[in-house]
C-alpha cells in the first residue's frame, strides 16, 4: 500500500467527528471507539484511506463518530458492502463495525462468506449477547436459558461462539478483546489491520441497560487476571494473578494446571502459535469458557493466505495482458461479424 509508506502523524482526536456520541453512559462502545481512534492514529495510514462501514444496531452508529469515510448501511449487510468497497479499491483500509445480531443472525451468511473469501477487511464484532437497539431481545450469542423480553422463560437455543464459527468458515484471523481493555484492543486492531485477509475481532462488550454484567464473572477487577488468558504469539499460555496457572493438552482436551503442582513446570505449558495453519487448537482455545477455563483474549489465529481482493486484481491484470480485446469497440467487432455493403 503506497499510502502507508508516507508517514502521517495523527492523534486520536483527528479521528473524532463533530457528532455527539449518543451511546448510553457506561456502554462498552465508548471504550471501543477510543481504542479504534487510537489504533487508526497509530497505523500510519492516511485518514482518507479509511472506510468504516457498519450494519444496524447500537454498535453500527460507529461510523458517524469517526472522522473518516463512513457508511451506515442496512441490517446484516455490512460484510457484503464492505467486501464490495474493498474489492473495488484494495488500497483502502476497510473496517466493518457490527454486532452479535447484525453479524451472526441476519448477516450470518455474509459474514461466513466474507471470511471464506478472505477479503482483506477488518470486522469488529461487538458481542454483548443481546439486542440493545430494539431494547432487550435475545441474540444468537445469548447464553442458553437467558431471560430476555422475547425469552421470558429462558432461551432454549444454543448460542454461536464467534471464534468457532469464523474458524469453521476458513477464517485466517480471529482475535478477542474486552471492551474496557483499551491497550489490548488497540494492539489487536493494529495487528488486524496489518493482517492481509479477513480479520475478525470479537469484542466482549457490556450493555449496561439490557444485559449488564454479561461478562462480570470474567472481567470484574478481582477475578479478571485469574479468568482471562491473554495470548502472546510464541509464548506459553500462562495466566493468573500470580502467573502460576497454565494450559496443557491432556489427551484430546485442554486442561488448566497450576505451575509447581504435580511436577508441572513452564516447559509443560502449551506455546501459543497464532500462525499454525491447523485450526484444531485455535478452535479449542477460542471455545474456552469460564468456569472450566479462562477466556482467551488476544490474537488467537493469524495465518497468512492470499487475500481475495488482491487475487481478483491479479487475475484481471493477467487476463488484460493476454487479451486482444482492449476496448469495448474491440469486443463489439470480435467473433463473427459481417459487413453489409
Amino acid at each position, binding site marked *: 500500500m503506497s499510502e502507508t509508506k508516507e508517514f502521517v502523524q495523527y492523534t486520536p482526536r483527528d479521528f473524532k467527528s463533530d457528532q455527539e456520541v449518543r451511546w448510553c453512559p457506561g456502554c462498552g462502545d465508548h471504550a471501543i471507539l477510543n481504542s479504534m481512534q487510537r489504533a487508526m492514529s497509530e497505523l500510519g495510514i*492516511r485518514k482518507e484511506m479509511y472506510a468504516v462501514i457498519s450494519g444496524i444496531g447500537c454498535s453500527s452508529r460507529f461510523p*458517524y463518530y469517526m472522522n473518516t469515510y*463512513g457508511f451506515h448501511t442496512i441490517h446484516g449487510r455490512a460484510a*457484503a458492502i464492505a467486501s*464490495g468497497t474493498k474489492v473495488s479499491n484494495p488500497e483502502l483500509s476497510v473496517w466493518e463495525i457490527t454486532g452479535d445480531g447484525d453479524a451472526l443472525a441476519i448477516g450470518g451468511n455474509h459474514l461466513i462468506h466474507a471470511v471464506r473469501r478472505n477479503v482483506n477487511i477488518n470486522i469488529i464484532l461487538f458481542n454483548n449477547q443481546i439486542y440493545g437497539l430494539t431494547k432487550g431481545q435475545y441474540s444468537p450469542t445469548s447464553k442458553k436459558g437467558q431471560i430476555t423480553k422475547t425469552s421470558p422463560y429462558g432461551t432454549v437455543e444454543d448460542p454461536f461462539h464467534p471464534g468457532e464459527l469464523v474458524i469453521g468458515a476458513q477464517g485466517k484471523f480471529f482475535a478477542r478483546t474486552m471492551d474496557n481493555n483499551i491497550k489490548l484492543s488497540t494492539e489487536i486492531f493494529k495487528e488486524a489491520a496489518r493482517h492481509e485477509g479477513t480479520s475478525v475481532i470479537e469484542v466482549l462488550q457490556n450493555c449496561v441497560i439490557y444485559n449488564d454484567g454479561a461478562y462480570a464473572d470474567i472481567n470484574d477487577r478481582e477475578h479478571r487476571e485469574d479468568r482471562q488468558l491473554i495470548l502472546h504469539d510464541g509464548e506459553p499460555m500462562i495466566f493468573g494473578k500470580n502467573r502460576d496457572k497454565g494450559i496443557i493438552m491432556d489427551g484430546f482436551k485442554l486442561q488448566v494446571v497450576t505451575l509447581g503442582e504435580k511436577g508441572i513446570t513452564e516447559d509443560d505449558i502449551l506455546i501459543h502459535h497464532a500462525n499454525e495453519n491447523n485450526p484444531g487448537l485455535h478452535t479449542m482455545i477460542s471455545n474456552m469458557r469460564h468456569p472450566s477455563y479462562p477466556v482467551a483474549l488476544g490474537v488467537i489465529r493469524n495465518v497468512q493466505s492470499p487475500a481475495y481482493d488482491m487475487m481478483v486484481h491479479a487475475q484481471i491484470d493477467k487476463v488484460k495482458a493476454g487479451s486482444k480485446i482492449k476496448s*469495448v469497440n474491440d*469486443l463489439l467487432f470480435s467473433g*463473427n461479424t459481417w459487413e453489409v455493403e
Partner: protein
Amino acid sequence: MHLTYEANKPMGKQQKPIELDDVTIRFSGDSGDGMQLTGTLFSNTSAFLGNDLATFPDYPAEIRAPQGTVGGVSGFQVHVGHKNIKTPGDYADILVAMNPAALKANAKWVKMGGTIILDVDNFNEKGFAKAGYRDDPIKEEGLEDYNIIRAPITSLTKESLKDLGLDMKSVVRSKNMFALGMIYWLFNQPLKYTEEFFTNKFRKRPEIIKANEKVLKAGYHYADTIEALHTSYLIRPAEIAKGNYRNINGNTATAWGLLAAAEKAGLQLFIGSYPITPATSILEEMAARKDLGVISFQAEDEIAGICTSIGASFAGKMAVTTTSGPGLALKSEAIGLAVITELPLVIVDVQRGGPSTGLPTKTEQSDLMQVLYGRNGESPVAVVAASTPSNCYYYAFMAAKIALEHMCPVILMTDGYLANGSEPWKIMPTGELPGITPPFADPDKEYEPYERDPETLVRKWAIPSMPGHEHRIGGLEKDALKGTVSYDPVNHEVMTKTRAEKIRRITKEIPDIEIEGDQDGDVLLVGWGSTYGHLATALEELLDEGKKAGLAHFHYLNPLPLNTGEVLGKFKKIIVCELNMGQFAGYLRMNFQQFTYHQLNKIQGLPFTVTEIKDAVNKLLEV
C-alpha cells in the same frame, strides 16, 4: 396398436428453388438434443447470408427432464426473411420434431398445412407412450393434411458415423446436425459457416469435427434425394442498412451496453450478482470480460449481490447488479439504501413468469409494479425498459448514464424473451454513444454530501481516498443541508420531496415519445418492453388494412417522457398491450386520469402473437 412409421425413401430430383419473403422454422426435441444450438447455427448462417431474422428459444426449467416426455421438450424458433423481421413469427412454416413429445408440445404452433420433419426412428410405440399419445400422433393431432417428412434421422446418423469408431453417445448426440443439414438443403444454404463453427469449437477433438461434418452433409444429401421434399426455397438477402453486423442476444447486448457506459464514463465496472434464470448469462459475460477490467463478484445471495455493488459504488466504481423478479424482491431493502444515499447503481431485472419461482424460463412483464414501487417508504428510482434483443445495448447504456449522472439507482427492465432472443445487430461503436460525466466532487472545494446542483438536484460524488472529503452516508434520514443524521419532521418531508423531484427532473434528458404509424386517429396501441416487435408488426398490418392506428412504445417508464399525455390524447381509443394483468395500464391511469384505457393482456409465459394483437385492436375498433 401396431404402428410403424416408414421412412421416406431417397429419390433423385432437380428443381429450381422457390423464392420466399420469409419463413419461420421451429426446432424441437429433448432438452438434451441440442435444439438451441441447432437453431443458433441456422440463425447464424442466415444472418451471414444477409437475411434479417429474430429468434425465440423456448426451453424447460429442468436441465434434463425425463427423455421423451413433453415436459422435457426444448424449442427454438427462428423467423428469417427478406423483409424487415421484428418478431420470431407467430406460427412455424416448418417444424422439426425429434420425437413424439416434441410434436405434441409444438404441433399447435405449425401453420395450417405446414411442413413437419420427424425423426421417424423415435416415432414408435415407446415414444408415443412417453408423449402420452394413444394413437397415431399425426391422426391424433389432426395433421393428415400437413406435409409430413418422415426422416430416419437417428439411424442415418448412426449409419453415416459407423466407420469413425465413436462411442454411441457421441454418435447420437450429433443427430441434430442431420436435421440441420436437411434444413440447409431446403433453404439452399451453404454448410460452410456451420463447418467453420465445428472447426473452432472442437479444435482439440478432430474426430468430433469430422463426425459433425459428416452428419450435417448426410442430412443435406438425404433431403436432396427424398421425394417428399420436392422443392427447395430461397430467401433473398434483406434490404438492410449498410454497416457492420453481428448476431446478438439481449443479455449479451445488456452486458456490452454496460461495458460501453463504464468506458465512456472512464470508470471500472463492478458487477455483484447471484445466478438466476434468465439473467445469469449477463454475469457470465461480465466474468469473462476481465480483459476490460471488469470486477465480477459472484455473491453468496441476491442481497449480497446488490450490497457488494453498493459498496463498489461508494468506492467510485460503475456498479451493476443483475437479477430476475424473485431476486429483485430480495434486493428491495438495499435498493432503498441506494435511493437514500443517492449512490449510482444499475439494477437489471430480466423478468420471468411469477409470482414466486413461477415460470423461470418463460417471459412475462409482471415486475413493473415491483420495479416502480416494491420498496418501503417513498423510494423513487428511474426505470428504463429495452424493447428488442439488440437495443438492450443502448438502453443498458442509457440506464448507466442516468445512474452515473443523476446519482441514483436505475432499474433496467428486460425479460426472458429479450434475454435469450437474438437478431442481427448493426454494431453501434462507442463513438456513436453520448458521453457520460459523473458529478465527482471538486478536490479543491469544501465538500458537503448533500449539497445539490440547483438545476438537477444531483449531489456530488466524493470517493474514499479523496483527501479532505471524508464524510458519512447511510440509511438514516439526513439533514438536507449538513448531511448529518436528522429526525426533524420537516426535514424528512423536504428530503422525500427532493428525492422524488430529482428523479422527475431526469425528464429533461429523455427524448419525447414518437408515435409510429398514424400521428392521430382511431386507436393508439401502447406498449413497453419486449412486446415491441409484435406490436410494430401488428401496426404495419393494421395500417395496410387501412386502419387509422398508431403505436406509442415506451422505453423510459420513470420518469415518463414529457409528451406522454399529449400523445395519449391524439387518438380516439387507447389500448395498452402487455404481458401481465395490466400494470402499465394502471400506471398510466394513475398518471393520466383523463383518458380511458383498454387493455390487451396475456399471462401465459409467452410473447404475444401478431394475430392476437390485431384481433384485439379490430375488435376494439368495431365497438
